[in-house]
């Protein structure tokens, strides 16, 4: 792909579309699968003198960190080989990696939450896939529909907030703005640029992503304290 495009910027955009869809899916599937597969292990550890939250948070970070490393290496090595470090696109690429890492952390945490609340494996898998489908596809559809339906009203605030509540959308916007192609973003593009382009906007969106990681983690710690095994 790098050789076909002959341009790192285009490669980043193409990859973005893949990453934004695939990274959450992989995070979700691995998170759920790992939790169910290590249940026996968990039972063994629970009878040992180990804190409950350390067992589960340890499992979570085990999955999330190994997925993150494979993302960084898998993307980093080919780009580095192509001469990324000499190219001006390096910051765009870093942005891509950072959002990819956040998405991994967010979606494995969400997957762990789902798995913890569902004893039934099939149900757990189903809900996890549904969650991914919702955030990756359906949410956008609803968002667009509402934009069309309410087009007579001023929608800039609404679309900003709606974007904030979906980590996938938020990551996409962050990368696109970094690439400076917000002109592609239709009529709200300017508003987005105004908001996310400022330092307040970037801080807000990064903290939103952090929140998306922290809240599910807190729920894991909370649920685990009350759960029976």
């Amino acid at each position, binding site marked *: 792909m790098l050789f076909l495009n002959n341009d790192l910027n285009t490669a980043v955009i193409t990859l973005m579309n893949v990453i934004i869809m695939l990274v959450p899916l992989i995070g979700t599937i691995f998170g759920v699968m790992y939790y169910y597969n*290590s*249940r*026996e*292990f968990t*039972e*063994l*550890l*629970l*009878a*040992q*003198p*180990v*804190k*409950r939250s350390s067992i589960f948070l340890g499992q979570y970070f085990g999955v999330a960190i190994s997925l993150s490393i494979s993302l960084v290496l898998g993307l980093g090595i080919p780009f580095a080989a192509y001469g990324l470090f000499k190219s001006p696109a390096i910051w765009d690429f870093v942005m891509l990696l950072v959002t990819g890492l956040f998405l991994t952390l967010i979606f494995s945490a969400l997957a762990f939450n789902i798995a913890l609340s569902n004893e039934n494996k099939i149900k757990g898998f189903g809900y996890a896939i549904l969650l991914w489908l919702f955030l990756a596809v359906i949410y956008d559809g609803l968002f667009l529909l509402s934009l069309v339906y309410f087009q007579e009203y001023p929608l800039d605030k609404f679309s900003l907030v709606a974007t904030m509540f979906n980590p996938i959308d938020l990551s996409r916007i962050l990368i696109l703005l970094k690439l400076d192609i917000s002109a592609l973003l239709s009529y709200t593009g300017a508003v987005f640029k105004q908001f996310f382009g400022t330092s307040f906007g970037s801080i807000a969106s990064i903290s939103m992503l952090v929140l998306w990681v922290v809240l599910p983690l807190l729920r894991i710690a909370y649920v685990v*304290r*009350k*759960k*029976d*095994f």
Partner: protein
Amino acid sequence: MVSIKNLHKKFGSQKVLDGLELEIKEKGIIAILGPNGSGKTTLIKSILGMVIPDKGTNKIDGKDIKNRWDYRQQLDYLPQIANFPGNLKVIELITMIKDLRGLPARDKELIDFFKIEHFLDKKLTKLSGGMKQKVNLVLCFMFDSPLIILDEPTSGLDPVSLLRLRKFIQQEKENGKTILITSHIMDFVEDVADRIIFLLEGKIYFDGTVNELKESTQEPDFEHAIAKLLTKEDV
């Protein structure tokens, strides 16, 4: 050692433990008996902190165990169904648990005692039920803890191993330990237990020695005495 007060637990609409009170001060072997679904495993798991009770307190050595984990350092547990991560070898599992506890372990002695050295290098998925149970026993007895909890220790064992286990449990008792056992094999219980606790519908229905049980039911045979306890409830 163990002091349980007014313990309640429900799973959905099913009441499993219903105001259970239990005091264990003495050393020796205490058998917890009861029909299927009478709450034996739930009681044990609540002592272990794996099941969180809805109501009531659970103290070990005078300290409430709620939200604590360090007391498990002084406690050994043998789960009813040996669920081990299948991708590990037996020896890897033993080493891992040893690392986790960080206490001196007598694994060599036990591996010898239960005769498992010839499958130490096998993966746990490849083992039969009885072999798994032996690994389970080794893991449980490895750390000389003062309180031992055994949930169905006899399941899946062949007669020779059963005799060995009996001998071992007697030996541990003489070393001054408190051992909690659940079992459905009555002559095993009659043989080893110093005190019988009979659970029925989440409450303690009988608490005493084997002889007291025989006297109170006027049955000379232990198995019949237990059966009578059960049928008396129906009348």
